[in-house]
């Protein structure tokens, strides 16, 4: 399965569905989707990278923690995440790099102000062809 994502409709908010050949790939696509939500389609660029290391009680919790990390970097440090290269070890710990750039209030003006990553409707699904995830954002 090659990776990809699409944005899902929700009455007041937004959802992300992403997929990849493995969990790391699916989560990396979720980060790409999140970048589109935060900055607008095609508005984000890869200029820098930051190392990331996260754990979670389960895979759903890891998904929430990853996107929350990207949200924190934006709001607290003004850094926009637009992609990632990730791997998850046998113990369920995530490591890798987040790719992005400093937030630009002009270029990224059409992005959504995301309040948080919700636990509602969380899905991490392992199939024969790869992994699919779903997550909803409070906008």
């Amino acid at each position, binding site marked *: 399965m090659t990776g990809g994502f699409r944005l899902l*409709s929700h009455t007041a908010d937004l959802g992300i569905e992403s997929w990849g050949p493995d969990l790391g790939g699916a989560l990396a696509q979720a980060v790409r989707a999140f970048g589109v939500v935060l900055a607008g389609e095609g508005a984000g660029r890869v200029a820098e990278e930051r190392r990331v290391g996260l754990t979670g009680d389960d895979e759903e919790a890891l998904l929430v923690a990853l996107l929350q990390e990207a949200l924190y970097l934006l709001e607290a440090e003004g850094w926009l995440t637009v992609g990632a290269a990730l791997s998850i070890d046998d113990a369920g710990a995530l490591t890798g790099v987040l790719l992005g750039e400093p937030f630009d209030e002009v270029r990224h*003006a059409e992005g959504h*102000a995301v309040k*948080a990553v919700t*636990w*509602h409707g969380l899905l991490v699904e392992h199939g024969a062809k790869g992994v699919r995830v779903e997550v909803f954002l409070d906008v």
Partner: protein
Amino acid sequence: MKPLHLPPSATHRLDRWRVRIEPIHEAMRGPGIAFASDRLWPAMQADETATQIAAVACLPGLVGASLAMPDAHQGYGFPIGGVAATDAAGEGVISPGGVGFDINCGVRLLVANRAAGKLKRRKEALLAAIFARVPVGVGHGGGLELSARDMEAVLARGAAWAVAQGYGEDGDLECCEAGGAMREADPEHVSERARARGASQLGTLGSGNHFVELQAVDQIFDATAAAAMGLEEGGLTALVHTGSRGLGHQVCTDHVAALQQATKRYGFDLPDRQLACAPLSSPEGRAYLGAMAASANFAWANRQLITHALRQALAEVLGDDAHFRLVYDLAHNVAKLERHQVGGRERLLCVHRKGATRAFPAGHPEVPERYRAVGQPVFIPGSMGTASYVLVGTPEALTETWGSVCHGAGRARSRTATRKRLDARQVLAALAAKDIAVQAGSQRGLVEEAPEAYKDVDEVVETVVGAGLARRVARLRPIAVIKG
């Protein structure tokens, strides 16, 4: 527990304004009651609202019914527009999902000592003066930079801190719910991440459905109540809608994550992880209550700073003697410890209002003295370009909904669907046709907030009034709006 499924047979209409959801699932600790007319109920069935009302009824220590207001729509865990009370003195829980990520998102109404007609050609100038002073939109910061010490004071004292710093005046605090600060606040449980997110956001509007709207008082329904509030036909008002910004969002995030394990440890099996909760008597429950209250205080300070900016803008454009007075300020995402009559005796309840507004009646001790004879003011914003309403609470609301009513028109269509049907040019043209001036942080945001995306506020208000939960006081017509 898997998500609940609600068959049509589980619901039946009680009367013109109320639909009952039977506690058909073993996990439900009470029924659901949706305050919804025939026109509003189908949408609640079509999205997950009705199912979420049932899910909320599974909360441990639920007292009475899981409630939904007429503007209710699908949320996450709780529906937006949901109200649920738990037994605060017993085994009742507190759930961050019942408050929402934007803790103390709320509204405040200001009334000017000028008629709206006096603005005329200076309407755009006033809008521009406000837009220059109130940061809006995506990104971080732009607001007052808070030192660690100031942040601690804001979390503890809320609007009182802002007034003491010179961002308010005598009389402002009396006209805030809870006096602009919840005494349960415990800043110790607000994380460093939350403080970092909020450190430069005080005095900012945010984005999404947050706004500052200038209005003309269009119609008076209750002359006595309107007079108490200082509202007269043709008067100029301003409605501010925003909350606790990134600080509150992070607090909810932190505590929902922490409560995932607590929920399991206490043996709670709930149909949605966003309903994670803990007994109010537990360390986790008390920690969230303290952090939530501190975040609520941040939001009140935020709206107080924005009020100061509006006062400055008004004086700049209309002269130094032009002034905005605060009518009232209300939270619509909060959990409050309140005493209510249940089965003939007084009980301490934790009332969760998620996209719902407190609406206490005349005579209630928590209603400010200036409004005690008429009832607590309630503000129901319409969508961009439609009317807003001023109401007062009733004794019936206290009995049926723990003194709660709706908080707005309620969203009817997703952001994605709205963008497919409309573009910014159409939205701006429609507003211009009504002579409504607009400043928006983004064109995308403007489209997503178009009136077509929302329910009919007249129908929503008709339902709360028809059900006896509130009385109309005035209708406000928009004349200018700033959207994030």
